């Protein structure tokens, strides 16, 4: 018998309702002193037993109705098949070789059980054996071959997949006698794989064996890790931990970036608890743009494979930008400084040191040591050293100035005259202005070309919708370029490259639009756009069984050809070829845990880790497991003299009869219920 919608069988659990009502709705007796109990006793005994019988009958009726209705909606049907004697029986064996089977002697027991199933199959049977995690399979083989295939299986750090097994079962010759046998530890991950099977497979007989620990063992795993910006130039690694065991556990988490010293911290997890722990690791200076990050937990337990997690970092080198802000007062500097602080936290390898000073504290030494100098407003010409600023830009610095309400033309004119500033503010125009043009069309010239990401980010904020009341008419000087304009044609951002550095003048207008601009959601992206943000750091951590990608170096990005082959080293130490796919180096799925790295320098890393949940060894309950496996198969009834043609299957629906029976019981229930009076 099989079911069209076996899920409805769960409705049979509704019998708990009448049973609970029967047990809970027991009458509360009022105590009454009385005298003539001898006249009550006989009648009461008779009535009581009759009432109990009736109540029990009603309870049974209602339970039967619920079960029948669940059966009715599940759509039971009988599969009839006439076997073809000319077709040899087929034995399908599925053996779970996922990583969880490596716990204890699970894999050995699974192999022994599968071999026993193969041995007990009919002598003329053909075997189709499937390794569920590795995907290895052998089809239509005889007993010795099947036995040898099973004996060679080892656990792999992959999740079990059952689709091939059930596809093969569905394609089996229907005239053959079909048996199926599954060996698995039925961990939650494995059960999820089996649960994904929607249509039951028609078989004549099926069996299953659960191996693995009888009770859920103690096991703590690293399920994920991600590098985030930390404090004081550190990198913070958020480590996801899962205690799959039932008891509380204390673990020590150790992290290490490249050759830098390891750091550790400890965490306590309750039974079956999942949470993340942050680990601060020092960011190594000058170690190159590609860094391996290794996270591990101790002590080791029954599943050491899930106690390690590897991440390959790729991005800009750890750089330190020293930004000096000159402002009229602290309030004016505060907004720019806040945007810079936020920016510093968004990129783990982009260290930005910010120093805010009032105009009067202009110091040439401070400027000389800075990489970016920002004037939140124009200072008096007398307090700044124009030559110092010109030398700063010529030497590779970035000078940024906001032209705001408190315009001091002498400052701009002197710096323009020194060949630093790209433009000079003119008359103020009081009108509501908006930025014009799409950000995609905006370029900032070669010095800022790595800032494409910053431009893309800025585009998302719709800065062009920010209304600005009034603006200066910026008059560009030689070499100055208006990168972004208002709808009136006046320039909003002017740029000029000078020597190895550059200067940017932002027209935040006569109405002091710096504040609304810096308070907007786009402030951080805008500042990143202005100071020239670093490239995004990318993290390369993959689950076993996934395709692995590695970052391309700058040389490869410039010179690699579409059909070019690369060589990488896989966790087993073997070299394998990789392909150039979407500006990255890609290799087919890796079934081993450890580092995948490029053989070419600079060495780039990608970590291959245990898939999350694969080592969750939570033991299943037997009844739900029985039900789950039962749902996977539709047992056929072999007929000899009647029924379908030889070798064909016929489905005989059983639900109409069950529906009528349920209806009849409902009518009987109404009748009996009316007779039962208390």
């Amino acid at each position, binding site marked *: 018998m099989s079911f069209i919608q076996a899920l409805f069988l769960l409705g049979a659990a509704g019998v708990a309702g009448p049973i609970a009502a029967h047990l809970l709705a027991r*009458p*509360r*007796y*009022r*105590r*009454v*002193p*009385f*005298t*003539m*109990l001898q*006249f*009550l*006793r*006989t*009648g*009461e005994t*008779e*009535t*009581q037993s009759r*009432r109990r019988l009736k109540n029990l009958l009603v309870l049974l009726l209602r339970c039967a109705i619920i079960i029948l209705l669940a059966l009715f909606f599940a759509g039971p049907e009988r599969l009839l098949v006439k076997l073809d004697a000319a077709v040899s029986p087929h034995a399908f064996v599925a053996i779970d070789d996922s990583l969880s089977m490596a716990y204890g002697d699970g894999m050995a027991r699974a192999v022994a059980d599968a071999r026993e199933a193969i041995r007990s199959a009919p002598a003329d049977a053909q075997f189709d054996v499937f390794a569920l995690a590795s995907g290895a399979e052998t089809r239509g083989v005889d007993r010795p071959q099947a036995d040898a295939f099973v004996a060679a299986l080892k656990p792999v750090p992959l999740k079990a997949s059952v689709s091939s097994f059930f596809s093969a079962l569905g394609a089996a010759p229907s005239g053959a006698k079909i048996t199926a046998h599954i060996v698995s530890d039925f961990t939650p991950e494995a059960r999820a794989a089996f649960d994904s099977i929607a249509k039951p497979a028609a078989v004549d007989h099926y069996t299953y064996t659960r191996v693995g620990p009888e009770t859920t063992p103690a096991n703590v795993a690293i399920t994920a890790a991600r590098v985030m910006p930390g404090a004081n130039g550190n990198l913070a690694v958020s480590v996801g931990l899962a205690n799959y065991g039932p008891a509380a556990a204390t673990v020590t988490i150790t992290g290490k970036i490249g050759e830098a010293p390891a750091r550790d911290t400890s965490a306590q997890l309750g039974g079956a608890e999942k949470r993340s722990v942050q680990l601060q690791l020092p960011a190594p200076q000058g170690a190159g743009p590609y860094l391996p990050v290794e996270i591990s937990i101790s002590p080791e337990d029954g599943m050491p494979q899930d106690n390690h997690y590897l991440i390959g970092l790729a991005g800009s080198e750890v750089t330190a930008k020293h930004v000096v802000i000159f402002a009229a007062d602290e309030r004016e500097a505060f907004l720019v400084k806040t945007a810079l602080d936020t920016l510093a936290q968004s990129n783990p390898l982009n260290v930005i040191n910010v120093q805010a000073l009032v105009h009067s504290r202009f110091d040439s030494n401070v400027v000389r040591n800075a990489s970016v100098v920002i004037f939140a407003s124009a200072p008096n010409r007398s307090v700044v050293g124009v030559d110092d600023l010109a030398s700063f830009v010529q030497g590779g610095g970035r000078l940024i100035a906001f032209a705001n309400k408190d315009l001091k033309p002498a400052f701009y004119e002197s710096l323009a005259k020194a060949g630093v500033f790209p433009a000079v503010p003119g008359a103020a125009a009081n009108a509501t202005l908006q930025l014009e043009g799409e950000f995609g069309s905006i370029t900032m010239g070669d010095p800022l070309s790595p800032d494409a990401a910053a431009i893309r980010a800025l585009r998302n904020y719709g800065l062009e919708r920010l209304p600005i009341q009034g603006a200066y008419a910026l008059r560009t000087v030689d070499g100055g370029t208006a990168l972004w304009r208002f709808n009136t044609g006046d320039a909003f951002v002017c740029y000029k490259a000078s020597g190895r550095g550059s200067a940017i003048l932002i027209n935040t207008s006569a109405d002091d639009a710096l504040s609304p601009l810096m308070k907007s959601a786009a402030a951080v992206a805008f500042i990143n756009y202005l100071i020239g943000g670093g490239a995004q750091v990318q993290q390369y951590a993959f689950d076993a069984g996934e395709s692995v990608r590695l970052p391309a170096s700058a040389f490869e990005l410039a010179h690699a050809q579409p059909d070019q082959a690369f060589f990488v080293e896989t966790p087993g130490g073997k070299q394998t070829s990789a392909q150039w796919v979407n500006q990255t180096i890609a290799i087919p799925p890796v079934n081993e845990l450890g580092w995948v790295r490029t053989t070419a320098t600079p060495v780039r890393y990608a970590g291959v880790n245990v898939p999350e949940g694969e080592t969750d060894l939570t033991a299943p309950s037997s009844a739900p497991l029985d039900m789950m496996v039962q749902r996977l198969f539709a047992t056929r009834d072999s007929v000899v003299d009647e029924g379908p043609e030889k070798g064909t299957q016929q489905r005989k629906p059983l639900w109409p009869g069950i529906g009528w029976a349920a209806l009849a019981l409902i009518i009987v229930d109404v009748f009996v219920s009316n007779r039962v*009076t*208390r």
Partner: protein
Amino acid sequence: MAGTTKYLDPKLLSKLGNMELIARCALQGFFSGLHPSPFHGFSAEFSDHRQYLPGDELRFLDWKMYGRSNKLYIKQFLQDTNVPVYILLDASNSMTYRGDSTYDKLDYGRYLSGALTSLMLSQGDSVSLVVFSERVTTRIPLRGRRTHLHAILTALSRIEPGGRTRLADVLHTFAETATRRGIVILISDLLDDGGDLSSGLAHLKYLRHDVIVFHTLAHEEITLDFRGAVQFEDLETRERLRTFPESVRETYQAKVQDFIDTIEKSSGRSGIDYCLLDTSQSLDRAFLAYLAKRRRLM
């Protein structure tokens, strides 16, 4: 004094008025009273003639009859007498059941006993009170003085209910110890604990007592007028029984009616007056109804 008059209901006594409880059977008495005596004597009311026998007193010869018929006849007269009245009051635990009535069965019996005592003493009869449960606990001897009422009312107020009903044993014991024939008034719920009630009553009747049974039951005992789930607890045995009264009411009522009918029939056969008293009804109405019935039967 208030305690002693507690069970003497003035309202009831005023309703009793001139009604008289008269023994239906001829009883032997010491003093003249309202009850007919088997001894033909010297009262004013002529009864019958009989032939003169040697030894008869000559003063009762009817000389006028002799003149007319020349035969000797003796005149006979009805003789009135007072009788002993024994009030047997059941004070077992089962008599403490009250139900929704104003009084429990024992109080009901007390009021009834008080009223009967007052009535009997006013008729010139002598009254004895016997209180019992498993055995006789209190016995107030026969007296005919009016002041005896006080003694009986005091005894009634001092009754402590308790024990189980052994009615048959008590009746046999009483029958053997009651030296004078008289009216035996039994006030009980008749829930004898396994005894043979009819044999006890028959014993009294055999000794030629005039027996009246006041069967006091609470209304709920007759009708089982309860609802919902009830755990009944026996007042005497402490036995518990859980049931839904609605489901057993019909059976119960039939059994109780059968019980009452059996007692009434056996009483009728033995010449015993039986009166079922429902404690939910006022005592005066039940009592007066009985007296009226009794007078009609005379």
